[in-house]
């Protein structure tokens, strides 16, 4: 998947600012392009209350709002990101198990490792129902910041 440098930095800053808690958000783009191109990212609140250092929850109500706004701008939910405070940038068994239970086929996940409040690594993954596993997704950063359209300013 490809995303703009400024969007990647936005995700990393979100992960740093949220440390030592997990943070999460949504990756938006247009379905059907290969490789997937992320056109915008959107932070959402981690609704996990008991163990926010080691768990994240995106409330369906929050996701619905992001999805509705995205559709109005011709974008779709392509995936999600979340941080792993003091933990590697790869999906955990919890990530795998919960993705396997949900509607996840082809869904992108970016995992950001944060150590001591400093982001160290971001890796992209895609979930495949057939194997019930995440597979590595090549991550390409577009350093040429393409100006957003005016109507995308809501992001």
């Amino acid at each position, binding site marked *: 998947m490809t995303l703009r440098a400024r969007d990647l930095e936005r995700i990393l800053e979100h992960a740093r600012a949220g440390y030592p808690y*997990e943070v999460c958000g949504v990756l938006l783009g247009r379905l059907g392009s290969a490789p997937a191109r992320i056109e915008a990212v959107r932070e959402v609140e981690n609704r*996990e209350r008991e163990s926010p250092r080691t768990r994240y929850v995106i409330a369906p*109500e929050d996701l619905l709002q992001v999805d509705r706004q995205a559709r109005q701008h011709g974008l*779709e939910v392509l995936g999600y990101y979340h941080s792993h405070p003091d933990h590697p940038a790869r999906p955990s068994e919890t990530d795998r198990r919960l*993705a396997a239970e*949900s*509607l996840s086929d082809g869904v992108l996940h970016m995992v950001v490792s944060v150590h001591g409040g400093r982001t160290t690594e971001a890796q992209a993954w895609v979930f495949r129902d057939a194997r019930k596993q995440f597979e590595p997704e090549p991550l390409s950063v577009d350093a040429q910041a393409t100006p957003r359209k005016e109507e995308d300013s809501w992001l």
Partner: protein
Amino acid sequence: MAVKVQIPGPLRSLTAGAAEVDVEASDVARLVEVLQERHPGFRERLLDASGQLRSYVRVFVNEEDVRSLQRQATPLKAGDVVAIVPAIAGGR
């Protein structure tokens, strides 16, 4: 009395890529059956073996989660927008 159903990305393979489909249904239970008839695979993805909505699937009618309404008996009327939203969670 058509309602508009918003299809999440992981289920687009069932609708030949359609992001929205119009369905004639009087309640949520019937809506799932109509989706299944037109796009086989929906029932299994949305309902568990006992016929209840799976825990990871939330169905919203306009802005309301059907769990806070009448679940699958939630009535639908023309012009309603139904969204199928996956539950997203994880952690290390």
